């Protein structure tokens, strides 16, 4: 294997991470196949101190690599689901994470924008699944005075608190600067 291949491979993964994109092992090996032959192993590479920022994350369909110096683990989790077009998990995981971590409800409209870029029809389809599947019975919807809708997980966020915070996000914050 050419001496500079590990550095080039790591550089590629870092650059992709900076753009918010993950890299599969195949993707990297294919890119440098001619030079690397079968000698390039990202697992081995990441054990090298110089490339210790390279991190593997597993999806349903593949394993992915990213650089922790350019992408956080929380974003990598989003990126996996984006890569695998798992819109349902994107919505459910985001809502549960935000309800438990911050805590806050999640405006449904955010899934139309960066980094999700879902179509309205796709969101509606996912909402229909969430509403009818008992695995997601903790996900509830609430409305604000301007008919902006939010989701929250009752496992982590009381309904009344979610309703207040939704109204604040949609209306209150702009009137109190």
């Amino acid at each position: 294997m050419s001496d500079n291949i590990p550095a080039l491979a790591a550089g590629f993964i870092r650059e992709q991470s900076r753009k918010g994109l993950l890299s599969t092992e195949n993707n990297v090996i294919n890119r440098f196949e001619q030079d690397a032959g079968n000698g390039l192993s990202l697992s081995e590479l990441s054990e090298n101190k110089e490339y210790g920022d390279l991190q593997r994350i597993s999806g349903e369909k593949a394993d992915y690599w990213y650089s922790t110096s350019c992408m956080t683990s929380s974003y990598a989790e989003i990126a996996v689901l984006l890569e695998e077009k798992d819109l349902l998990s994107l919505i459910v995981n985001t809502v549960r994470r935000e309800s438990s971590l911050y805590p806050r409800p999640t405006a449904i409209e955010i899934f139309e924008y960066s980094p999700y870029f879902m179509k309205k029809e796709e969101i509606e389809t996912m909402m229909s699944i969430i509403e009818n599947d008992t695995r997601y019975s903790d996900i509830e919807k609430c409305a604000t005075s301007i008919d902006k809708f939010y989701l929250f997980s009752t496992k982590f966020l009381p309904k009344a608190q979610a309703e207040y915070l939704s109204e604040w996000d949609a209306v209150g914050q702009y009137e109190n600067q």
Partner: protein
Amino acid sequence: MAVKGGWAGKILRVNLSTGNIERINTENFIRYIGGMGIGYKVMWDEVPAGTKAFDKDNKIIFGVGPLTGTGAMCSGRTNITSLLPSNPYNAVSDSHMGGHFGVELKYAGWDAIIIEGKSSRPVWLKIVDDKVTLEDAGIYWGEGTFATIAGITAMMGKQSQVAAIGQAGENQVNLSVIRTGPSHSAGGHGGVLGSKMLKAIGVMGTGAVNIAGDKMKWHELNKYALSLVGANNQHVVPRTPQPWAEYSHPGSRWTAKDGLYWEKADPPIETGTIRPEETNRIGYRTMKAMLDLGKNGPKYTVRMGGCAACPVRCKTHLEVPQLEQYGVDPHVANTCMGFYSPWGVLAGISGGKASVPGESKDDASVIAKALGAHYADDYGVWCNYGQIGRDFAWTYKHGVLKRVLPTAEYNSIDWESIEAGDPAIFADFYRRIAFKEGELSHLGDGAHYISERWNLGEDYWTYKGNKLWTKIGYPVHHSNESDAQVGSLISSMFNRDAQSHTHQNFIGSGLPTEVQKDIAAELWGSADAIDEPANYKPVTKAKMKFAKWSIVRNLLHDSLTVCNWMWPMTTSPLKERNYRGNTALEALYYTEATGEEISEEELDLQAEKLFHLHRALTIRQMGTVDMRNTHDQLTGWQFDMDPDKKAFEPGTIKLDREDYENTLTMFYEEMGWDPKTGAPTRATLEKHDLKFVADDLDVKNLLPA
């Protein structure tokens, strides 16, 4: 103490009655830090109790501090102290403006301007370095702020900075502003300048501010500060999930992202994603247009602007061609309530909509906000933090205006257009206020005065939607929604809406509550200083330490002067620092600028002294020691809102009466004030080198027993 650096070294005193111009040594004020501190000391020493805001004996102090003009981060603020006409007792208060006026004042060699007396004719004050003259303002009297500032700037030169009042100030409207630059205004004291017939102050300086410390160390300090700063309001996470960020928050003002443009720039400029280490691109982090002006704000944005030495640009500069149809300049610049307040004037009655023929709802809203901002700024009308719009709507909807306005006047108002959301009504509305035309213009007197004049009754004060915080007549400003008792207490301590953003910046940083709790425990002794939003718990000692610290830092910033909408650096965007900022940064700057070694704690003590002085000024002006019952009580809706919920249940920001009284007691004790009355004790005043204040209050029987 000799001035080595930071301060300019002298203060300008201008007597408008005699035309006398005097230079005072700043050294006597150094223990009052600067800006607000100078203002309070002058007010205590020189303005007798009982003086009214528009009396000749009132004074107005434009103050800057040892960091203004040094290039320290966000050090472009000017503090203005005087009696506040909209306050029922005309108690002391401050208004503040950003821009470049304060910095220019320092370059001209001045730490403050004390304006006293009253001119017999309209004048403006011209300051070119040490040369100070009073000039005839006859040609500007009757003009708006735009023409006045443009005219004086043309005369003095492009390097000058001008602060001016509009017709509202001239006519001594209580709610009027002093404005500078394209987008900066200080609310509340325009009428004081008007009462003195001082139309404007123009200043040009060719000097510099000396840094007493090592110049390289100063440079490194600035670089370090830039590494800790976030976006507007020190929000330290991006608004949308981004690869570099562990956290994000939809309320964050770190709006930068790929595909977001200043669309009216030529060519359009993409803010792009801005990572924390990109300190040369901090100016792109915040695009306020998308927050203040809605979905179509970016479409009209030429650029973001801001103040001297501030890397964060929080003022939206717009080009709205449709404004030419209304006969005004299409270029408008402002931020926050500058846009939201006129929107409230219109939308409070129209039902939240603006309507312009041929324009979409989103475009019409931008047109309305920009047009309203133009008229309010030009006439120099202050909104009392949005209260004027709520008062207009409430008095209209409750039939008050129909009752109190003469029929001819009532019928002269185009209610149909207002209800339809037609922005053309702004010209008429703001003119009536600024020129005191008719009964309607009393909306410009302020909440307390219209309540008395129009007999609005308790319903007016206790209606939650009116947002009135205390009967002194100002509204909420990051109050019970901001960590319950912390925001509530802070909102009750001043003589106008609280100008403290310390607590709100921390709460609104975008970090998860658990991270904030860890930081709170380090700073205020317990994680209990902060609760989950809208899931509040009874008051704790740590909450009151947080409240006190927030106020003290607010006063510190308005004295140094640095922007309290950005400072302190309680948090940072840096994961490697575990999102900690550095609360000692002000002291580090102070030490390097002035050459006087000072710790964070020592500097906080100096700022705390100013808060005791503010309280003493309020007590002396109100003539009572019983602050708890006469000053600090709420209007009531805070306890009675959400009738189906109890205080401290999730989902409400409702307060509890007993808990609020406990809050006051615990805060008074934290301050060293009498727990019964909330007045500073002699011991506390003396501890803070304010024996002369204690002695004076004692003579007036205004010290607690």
